[in-house]
């Protein structure tokens, strides 16, 4: 028998040749045996640093200890004290930048695979079936939650557990926000999102889909309906374009359109589902974030022969998770780095045929700390393609914000809100998630929803809270 310490397990995943043929999930999850063995690798630090890396401060050593003792129910309960969406977070959180980056074992070897363990426990519980907890007596205060992404869902769930009457208003026809319209099935199965939404509804939260706040109802209409506090979690849903010539040619999509057609509208099942999505032979995705990776991998699954990623810095600066870049490359996505589109070329029928690009080099660091890409004069060249997905980021959608002129926004057009409570410039109105921070992560949106739920409770129960609103 070997006395060597076991090493971090690899996530079992489907082989690339097989997985690019369908939209089924790629990673398969750990077995119980492997998960427990991995949990035993945790040295249970006296002063655990991993917790500092978790935006919702899960008691990580606590749940890992229970898991290492085979107490699966206790372990998942421990996670759920802080995180109500572990099946989702276990799949999409960038643990390598968060908890795992702080793990002491990572200094000399490999950090504990905290994310894999979270996912294992959440899946274990899901398969068993989740019971709704018993609820406290109802309180006669109504809260409106606008947007059903991770921020809204979390805020609504936590408030319902305190006994408040909560209604979620969602503009799209399905709840989940980016979890349903953005992140593809092969990375986050929609059945998991649906189960989390069902759970929130089982707590008594009312869900109204296809209601666009700002259009169908204004905030004042909701006040008239008796809602006394509001949580705005409308996300960063406005797609940015490059604003270079030719961008409206046919065959050029924003990542939001491309992914929404595929995920929310199920264009990959066309014509069984009615929404089409045209993907050519040769696709270029512009950008280097998770959204770009998701778009590129979706394009492959929709039948593209070649997919390249055009990014203006180098792989090191890509904001996407390393794991996702690796998976995309395994599947055949070709990264063209230090390259920036200058204009799109098209044919006489208005379809895109190529991208004129310019080569870049890295200059001085900019305010984000990453080295600024600068164009190399005279280095223009053409990439022939027939489909383009622009995935260079999203901003705040002004649709609702325009209808609340008194709501203070920050310099970038997002809602100005207190980082601890989500309190905005308007009495009783809270906000959190991407609509406050700009495009960020599922877990940070969830954390914001949680903190606002606490704050809303204080707003109702403590007449000394939020003095700025009570003059």
């Amino acid at each position, binding site marked *: 028998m070997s006395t060597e310490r076991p090493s971090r397990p690899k996530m079992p995943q489907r082989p690339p040749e097989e997985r690019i043929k369908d939209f089924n999930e790629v990673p398969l999850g750990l077995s119980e045996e492997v998960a427990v063995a991995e949990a035993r690798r945790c040295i249970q630090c006296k002063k655990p640093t991993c917790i500092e890396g978790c935006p919702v401060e899960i008691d990580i050593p606590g749940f890992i200890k229970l898991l290492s003792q085979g107490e699966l129910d206790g372990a998942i309960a421990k996670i759920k004290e802080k995180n109500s969406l572990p099946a989702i977070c276990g799949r999409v959180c960038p643990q390598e930048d968060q908890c795992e980056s702080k793990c002491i074992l990572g200094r000399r070897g490999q950090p504990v695979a905290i994310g894999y363990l979270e996912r294992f426990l959440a899946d274990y519980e899901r398969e068993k079936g989740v019971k709704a907890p018993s609820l406290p007596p109802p309180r006669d205060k109504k809260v409106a939650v606008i947007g059903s992404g991770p921020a809204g869902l979390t805020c609504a769930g936590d408030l319902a557990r305190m006994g408040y009457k909560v209604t979620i208003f969602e503009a799209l*026809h399905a709840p989940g926000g980016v979890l349903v319209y953005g992140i593809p099935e092969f990375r986050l199965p929609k059945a998991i999102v649906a189960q989390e939404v069902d759970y929130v509804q089982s707590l008594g939260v009312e869900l109204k889909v*296809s209601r666009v706040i700002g*259009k169908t109802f204004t905030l004042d209409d909701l006040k008239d309906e008796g809602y006394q506090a509001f949580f705005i979690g409308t996300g960063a*849903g406005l797609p940015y374009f490059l604003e270079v010539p030719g961008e409206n040619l046919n065959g050029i999509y924003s990542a*939001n359109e491309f992914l929404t057609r595929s995920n929310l509208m199920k264009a990959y099942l066309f014509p*069984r589902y009615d929404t089409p999505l045209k993907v050519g032979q040769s696709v270029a995705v512009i950008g280097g974030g998770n959204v770009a990776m998701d778009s590129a991998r979706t394009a492959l699954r929709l039948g593209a022969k070649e997919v390249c990623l055009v990014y203006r810095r180098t792989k090191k600066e890509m904001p996407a998770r390393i794991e996702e870049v690796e998976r995309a490359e395994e599947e055949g996505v070709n990264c063209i780095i230090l390259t920036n589109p200058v204009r799109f070329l098209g044919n006489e029928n208005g379809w895109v045929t190529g991208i004129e690009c310019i080569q870049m080099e890295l200059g001085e660091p900019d305010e984000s700390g990453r080295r600024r890409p600068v164009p190399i004069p005279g280095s223009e060249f053409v990439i022939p393609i027939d489909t383009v997905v622009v995935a260079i980021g999203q901003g705040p*959608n002004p649709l609702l914000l325009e209808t609340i002129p008194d709501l203070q926004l920050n310099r970038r057009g997002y809602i100005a809100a207190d980082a601890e409570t989500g309190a905005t410039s308007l009495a009783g109105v809270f906000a959190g998630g991407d609509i406050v921070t700009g495009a960020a992560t599922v877990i940070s949106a969830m954390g914001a929803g949680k903190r606002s739920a606490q704050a809303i409770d204080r707003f109702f129960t403590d007449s000394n809270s939020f003095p700025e609103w009570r003059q």
Partner: protein
Amino acid sequence: MAKILKKEVLTPQIKLMVIDAPWVARKARPGQFVVLRINEQGERIPLTIADFDLQEETVTIIFQEVGKTTMVLGDLEEGDEILDFIGPLGKEIEEKYFGHVVCVGGGVGIAPTYPKARAFKEKGNRVTSIIGARSSNLLFWEEEMRRVSDELFVTTDDGTYGEKGFVTQVLERVLNKDKVDLVVAVGPVIMMKMTSLLTEKYSIPTLVSLNPIMVDGTGMCGCCRVTVGGKCKFTCVDGPVFDGHQVDFDELMARQRIYLEEEKRALDAWLMETEKEGAPYHVY
């Protein structure tokens, strides 16, 4: 869920439905539209609000059966329900006194012209309306339009009813003999383009209501982008009504053709399927 309270067959391919949708009716203004999804497998399509009734809390939609979704919709009956009925979306037109307003409606575009003409009339404008269609069997709402107009002209391309020819030739006559302060045109892109080219010669402000392909209708996908005055606009939130002299109509026409092949595939598959089940076969 939104229930169909009334269904009327205006022409063999153009149908009217009155929908029980208080949440849309209460806020609807002329110029706005809804996005609907018929069933779980359905796509989201935009339709202009042709009329709304605050008392009954209903919204009227009028659509031409041109593809699978509109045909499936056209097959629904009174009492049936539409899964998602979202709105009102887009910006309303500026309802105010301009003086003499000419409303031009082409084909199924007559429907969205109506609430605009009515709104202008209510603001005290003198309203001249010109409505046209390819043929007499595609014309509808002549009486409704007459009621909200001081003067009404009707054309058909083939001369089977009213004056033979295009709406633009009547418009040119009106522009030559009368002072016009505003032209509003709704209909096929080519008709809005020709109208805008004409009024540009006469320097008459012109509003058009655009109908690009949409998905969400809330500014989230950019599918509906159009070029207006050299700038990229999202029709669903910045429009659908724009200054006709600034719109790049050729680009819009190209973008409307993106899914022609897929639309045909979906339609053919559906026709095969429904024929098997003995549903009426649509000749189009």
